[in-house]
């Protein structure tokens, strides 16, 4: 049996992933109890959970796709562990490729040497764990400072609300800008016809559903509005991919330049 997919590796995966699930359950239970004390309705909290689960499906499938992509070289278990925990789509690929390059290997071939496999696991882990060292020292301070700033602003005016919204919008704007004018290293997913059509479709569907929910008081539909809008955007990408000639569907600003 391939050592990368041995019972030992699966045991390791169950242990690490179990840790993350137990942590999530712990925080959810504590938050739910606190929500009840604060007078938040059960339905509001349940809606947050349902909406979040639906919202997660498509990005989780993309993460699963990365697990599968890395599995060719690293076996299925190590990418599974890494992308179920602190990992990230881009980090894990870059970290493993960088390590393998030092050995003169690459992700295109299966890793057969356990010490190279161990080296990849070290680089993946050490590269991405630094935030866990920072958080115990700085999370509380940052959180307190921001809370104080917002509270102070709210005393004098509604500036706190506007600034909090501006910060959110700043984050979303980065992704919208990339969908309009971004380029990728490998040329897959460059901004152009497909990205803008996807973006506009999900925005339009989101706005329509939001309006319908508000107008007809459809509180049960509301948590599903954003996930439905996201799937609609993805559906548009598939439709355009099928309906348009490849040269048109693949059109991007960057290929024109």
């Amino acid at each position, binding site marked *: 049996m391939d050592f990368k997919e041995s019972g030992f590796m699966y045991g390791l995966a169950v242990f690490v992933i179990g840790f993350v699930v137990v942590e999530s359950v712990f*925080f959810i239970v504590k*938050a739910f109890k606190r929500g009840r004390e604060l007078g938040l309705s059960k339905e*509001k909290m349940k809606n947050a959970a349902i909406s979040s689960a639906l919202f997660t499906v498509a990005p989780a*499938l993309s993460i699963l*796709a990365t697990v599968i992509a890395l599995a060719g070289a690293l076996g299925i278990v190590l990418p599974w562990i890494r992308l179920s925990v602190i990992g990230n789509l881009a980090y894990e690929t870059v970290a493993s490729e960088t390590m393998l390059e030092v050995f003169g290997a690459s992700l295109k071939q299966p890793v057969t040497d356990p010490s190279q496999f161990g080296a990849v696991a070290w680089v993946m882990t050490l590269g991405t764990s630094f935030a866990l060292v920072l958080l115990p020292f700085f999370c509380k301070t940052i959180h307190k400072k921001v809370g104080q700033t917002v509270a102070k602003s709210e005393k004098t005016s509604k500036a706190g609300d506007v600034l909090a919204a501006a910060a959110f919008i700043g984050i979303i704007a980065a992704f*919208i800008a990339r969908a309009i004018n971004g380029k990728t290293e490998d040329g897959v997913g460059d901004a152009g016809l497909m990205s803008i059509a996807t973006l506009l479709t999900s925005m339009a569907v989101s706005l329509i559903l939001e309006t319908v929910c508000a107008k007809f008081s459809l509180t049960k539909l509301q948590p599903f509005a954003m996930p439905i809008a996201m799937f609609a955007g993805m559906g548009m990408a598939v439709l355009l991919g099928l309906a348009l000639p490849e040269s048109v569907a693949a059109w991007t600003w960057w290929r024109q330049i």
Partner: protein
Amino acid sequence: MKNKTERTYFDRVHTWGRLWSVGALITLLLVPVSICVHFNAWPPMQEVFKALIKVLPIYWGTAVVEVLTYTPMLGAGGTYLSFVSGNITNLKLPCGLSAMENAGVKANSEEGEVISTIAIGVSEITTTVIIAAGVLLFAPFLGTLTDPDSVFSPAFTYVLPALFGALGAGYFRKHWRISVFPILIGIAVLLFAPTLPAGTLLFATIVASIGGALVFMKLKWI
């Protein structure tokens, strides 16, 4: 009295979060240690160092910036959970923001803290279940689904525009006056550095968005 209770809850979250973070760090480090011990295969440390020297400045620098940027957005519980479970930009952050928006609560309020924690926790469990199910049951099928030649491939290639379009529309409608400027700044930055990842670009757009909002408030446009 209420303030005291609120402080106590936040304090407790930070205590739990610190303990879980240390636990997570130990658990994660156990993976390479266990692999090396079990297979009796310790890699040459100079080689590992050669790779680390290339990736650590980027990853650790990004970690500092991510902690500073995401902590105020995700709330305390959401932050501790997100940094253990990863995929923050493309998953945990939109989930937390979307849930708070739907519930009509503010980040940095205790209600926002509760909703964000529930959303991010559920998102993590859902991700874990989907990946585990995919690995154990659907791995061969998924390869076909996401294959570049598959008809479904564009859906996964453009998952981020779909996700942030759905999330952004509501915000933009409510705050359209302050939304245009950061998007234009983002587009302008990308003209000079087109491959800049969203995780880095967002510092420019956040500064533009907050700066723009402050100017608009001063001019009494909002």
